[in-house]
């Protein structure tokens, strides 16, 4: 088993004529926590969405756990993967969205058990036991049967994290998980993410929470205009940024 979880080489992504990613090259090791920082429109969310094939890349190579994302390579040719295979691979990659995207017609518990029962074909009892464990872990012991509308933003996002974890992913992607939250509620979500990082989960986090990045990240990547401006340890990128662009961004957000 390789130690590399995500490997991107010269990844390009266009939306029509608009080139959003202009050659991203980086690796995320197993157990590593990587934070992607950068101004809006820098391509960090798009890159994150490419990792679980919510967006198709236009050129370059992107692989997760040694396998190409969305394609199969044989005899020097690329073959598109069938939707079913793409769906199978997504089971192993958890994703948390800025707008939570909980299923509003289901309770917290049903949100968490849906994929394990439907996709992994686990028994209802087993799935519910595991879901309760996960909801307890994110501090929502008394909210099993609440619909999302009855939960605060922070509680909803914690349910969303539990929902992703219920599939036992090997990689978790976070797309600005706290950007839609009231300042008071940001902490409870970051606490859960901090615990998750400590447990050894491989995480790629798009965030504007510099404090979280400094404390939790193994690697911080600063992106702008569809390229990686600089990458390194939090001390390097946040403490002593080499590039002017990084410095000016940090001076505005800190």
């Amino acid at each position: 088993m390789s130690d590399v979880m995500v490997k991107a080489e010269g990844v390009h992504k266009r939306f029509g004529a608009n080139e959003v990613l202009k050659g991203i090259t980086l690796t995320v090791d197993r157990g590593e926590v990587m934070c992607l920082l950068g101004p809006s429109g820098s391509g960090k969310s798009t890159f994150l969405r490419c990792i679980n094939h919510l967006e198709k890349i236009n050129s370059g190579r992107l692989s997760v756990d040694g396998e190409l994302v969305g394609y199969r390579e044989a005899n020097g040719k690329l073959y598109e993967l069938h939707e079913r295979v793409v769906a199978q691979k997504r089971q192993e990659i958890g994703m948390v969205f800025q707008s939570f995207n909980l299923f509003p017609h289901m309770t917290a518990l049903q949100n968490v058990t849906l994929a394990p029962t439907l996709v992994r074909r686990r028994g209802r009892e087993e799935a519910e036991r595991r879901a309760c464990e996960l909801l307890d872990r994110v501090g929502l012991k008394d909210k099993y049967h609440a619909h999302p509308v009855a939960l605060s933003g922070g509680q909803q996002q914690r349910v969303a994290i539990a929902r992703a974890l219920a599939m036992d992913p090997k990689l978790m992607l976070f797309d600005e998980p706290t950007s839609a939250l009231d300042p008071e509620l940001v902490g409870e979500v970051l606490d859960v993410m901090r615990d998750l990082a400590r447990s050894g989960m491989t995480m790629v986090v798009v965030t504007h929470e510099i404090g979280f990045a400094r404390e939790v990240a193994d690697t911080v990547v600063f992106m702008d205009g569809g390229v990686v401006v600089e990458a390194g340890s939090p001390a390097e990128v946040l403490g002593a940024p080499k590039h002017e662009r990084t410095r000016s961004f940090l001076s505005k957000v800190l």
Partner: protein
Amino acid sequence: MDQTELTQIAPERPDDIKAVPVRRPGRWLGAFIVLVIAASIVRAVVTNKNFGWSVVGQYLFDHRIISGAIAVLYMTALAMVVGVILGTILAIMRLSPNPVLKTASWLYIWFFRGTPLLVQFVFWFNIKALFPHIDLGVPFGPSFIHADPNSVITVFGAAFLALSTNEGAYMAEVVRAGIISVPEGQSEAAASLGLNRLQIMRKVVLPQAMRVILPPTGNETISMLKNISIASVIGFAELYYQASDIYAQNYETIPLLIVASIWYLALTSIAYVGQYFLERKVGQGFSRSQQATMKERWLSLGAGGGGGLR
């Protein structure tokens, strides 16, 4: 904040406000005018002999009328079920990335919404003029099933085919509106959990789309209940057909139309009740508080009712 904290700041809670309500003479005047008009309508209806209320009473539960009402109810249920299934398939085809399916669905909807229902009834009834034999098989190749159109296209069969195929076209647009009303983030979240397209549609998108689909489906059901009367032109023995059959013999036209109308109103009322409970069911999780009941709404009419936007 804590209860105890609050009481420390304000140990004495002031009395509830008892203010004299604003006088609203306009409201009383409006109500008075409406009541006067209503009273004169009631007087006209009750005193006018031409309404023939005794004849209405005589035929209201006539076995021919009852059988007509049952035919309407039965046909509506049957054609609506098929129409909803057909409409769902057409809506999904129209939203699919496959250009052939998309175009086929568009053409279907274009054709069946674009021609009058009356024409479609007569068309289906006369289909045997167009296809003397029914053969199902490979186009230009061998066929497997042979049928005589006379056995398939009875009056009931023609009415059912016309109503359900027509309803499919309308329901397709209703279902499509419901599907596109569900935010894309829902499908993305489901996809990121590893659900496939069919699972996403069944478990995530359609249950939420139902909230948008149901009210216009209630409309469709009520329209169909009444549109079935058009099938009288091909001799389908529904409510209006039975009523007209009776008044053709006894010339009591108005009373029998009233009988038919009373039954139509009763049948549409059933649709109302069904819609109310279905909407409550699919509305779960979309509102913080349970919607006000009928009783609460009427009570709020009497009391104050000055504040708020509504």
